């Protein structure tokens, strides 16, 4: 069992994040929106800046030393990702813009060659739009059907209902590891067993998971795993898809262009091997070392300790907001991580967000790109406070003080 950070450790961690040292509307900035995007530690900022200052050239083609260094720096992001996900082979890591692009790649490449008329794609009712829309597009194109497994009133997946929906036509189960709107942690290992027993593949959207729990794709035994760098203290515009080698091998290229080819003539083009087959065009080069630095940072802090720290904060916050009159939590699954979603009676989430902002507290107010989740709970929007490695109990206290101001304004 990992332990939360001590006060001394937390103070050191907070000092690693230059952005936190500022005021918002004259109050100390309290950043509680890490589920939307995390802040960056100095080591990540430095890694990006060093790439441009010392090691920059295009990657994978130059014969000169500088280009070799740039390639090595970019590729360090791939190796760090392999380590992060405990993947057997770095070639199974496709570096992309982020989770959304990774899911679209699977939909467009694997999906187009494996999903036909009458086939089914199964998702859950708690998915982010990025794990809904690519499948709707694929289903519309291929004449397939999108099937949705329901969630209960706490926001937990009803696993038996998911199981009932897995059948011979199910080609893929695409499921979020940790819900961005509700915080629900899904039993992905169990879902994989159910899906595989029916011959379906499984994609896990790990955007909210990788920064707060150890992820081992061999243990989960999924077929694809996707995440974004910017949600684990790295830069935006870089992320990865991990896929089983045999699947990536068989998948057709997605976007055409440079980098993804072996040879090109007007008569015939042969494609590069994976992962480069899926990496057309010059990538976000600085994103490679930036991502590697972020993963290094997370590993040195201990991702399980980050998880324990956030769990402790979540428990503290869940208790603390109970004293706020009219507050109702949205998302109370037994296994939760990182996210406190709620509404206040008679007050719209946006008004809560505006008032908190004036108190220096940054939270997300809205539908969190999960409109079906909002509909499920019968609310137009929720307020979401989400935690990161750098958050403290004092941050939660500031949130609660701000919420009392909200109640006072609307009394």
């Amino acid at each position, binding site marked *: 069992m990992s332990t939360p950070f001590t006060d001394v450790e937390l103070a050191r961690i907070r000092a690693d994040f230059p952005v936190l040292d500022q005021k918002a*509307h004259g109050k100390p900035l309290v950043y509680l929106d890490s589920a939307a995007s995390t802040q960056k530690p100095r080591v990540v900022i430095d890694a990006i800046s060093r790439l441009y200052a010392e090691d920059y050239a295009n990657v994978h083609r130059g014969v000169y030393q500088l280009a070799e260094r740039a390639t090595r720096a970019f590729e360090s992001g791939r190796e760090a990702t392999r380590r992060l996900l405990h993947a057997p082979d770095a070639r199974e890591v496709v570096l992309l813009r982020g989770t959304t692009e990774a899911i679209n790649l699977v939909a467009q490449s694997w999906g187009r060659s494996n999903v036909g008329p009458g086939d089914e794609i199964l998702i859950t009712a708690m998915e982010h739009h990025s794990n809904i829309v690519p499948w709707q597009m694929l289903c519309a194109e291929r004449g397939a059907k999108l099937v949705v497994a329901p969630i209960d009133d706490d926001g937990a997946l009803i696993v038996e209902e998911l199981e009932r929906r897995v059948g011979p036509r199910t080609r893929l189960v695409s499921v979020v590891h940790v819900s961005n709107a509700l915080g629900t942690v899904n039993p992905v290992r169990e879902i994989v067993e159910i899906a595989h027993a029916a011959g379906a593949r499984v994609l896990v959207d790990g955007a909210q998971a990788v920064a707060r729990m150890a992820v081992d794709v061999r243990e989960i035994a999924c077929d694809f795993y996707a995440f974004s760098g910017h949600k684990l203290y790295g830069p935006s515009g870089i992320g990865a898809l991990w896929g089983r080698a045999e699947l990536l091998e068989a998948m057709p290229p997605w976007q055409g262009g440079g980098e993804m080819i072996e040879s090109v003539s007007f008569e015939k083009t042969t494609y590069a091997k994976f992962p480069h087959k899926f990496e057309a065009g010059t990538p976000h080069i600085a994103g490679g070392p930036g991502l590697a630095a972020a993963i290094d940072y997370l590993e040195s802090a201990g991702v399980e300790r980050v998880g324990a720290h956030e769990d402790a904060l979540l428990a503290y916050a869940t208790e603390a907001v109970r004293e706020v009159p009219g507050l109702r939590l949205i998302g109370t699954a037994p296994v939760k991580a990182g996210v406190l979603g709620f509404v206040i009676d*008679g*007050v*719209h*989430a*946006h*008004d809560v967000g*505006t*008032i908190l902002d*004036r108190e220096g507290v940054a939270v997300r*107010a*809205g*539908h969190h790109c999960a*409109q079906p989740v*909002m509909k499920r709970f019968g609310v*137009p*929007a929720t307020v979401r406070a989400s935690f990161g490695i750098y958050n403290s109990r004092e941050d939660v206290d500031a949130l609660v003080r701000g919420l009392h*101001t909200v109640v*006072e*304004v*609307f009394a």
Partner: protein
Amino acid sequence: MSAELRELYQSMILDHYKKPRNYGRPPGADREAEGVNPLCGDHVHVYAKLQDDRVAEVGFEGSGCAISTAAASLMTQAVKGHTTAEVRELFERYHELVTGRGDVDPESLGKLAVLAGVREFPARVKCATLAWHALRAALEGAGEPVSTE
């Protein structure tokens, strides 16, 4: 609580939020349009009945924040009895008021002046104007939903 917050959420705005005026579809409404803000999911439906180019009846339905609901409610009171040209002109001046652009005299806008505090909250201008955009679409008879984006 800051002075800006106090101005934004002053009592008349909260009153119109909690007890919106002209809520619902007025009898005989012959114009309507929907306004949506895809970023927050707020939506408002505005109805009007035109008589000799004047807004004889006006109402709205929808769900939104205090600012968008109060703005819609106050709008219905402000435009009733006015010609479509007057409504257009009023919207222009109101827009200047809530964005802080231009030199409109808040006094000239009557009760709408309570929304002047929005200018300190640029992210909320869309809330304050959503119903107005929908009303304009309704009066112009476009019939297409309007979006803030």
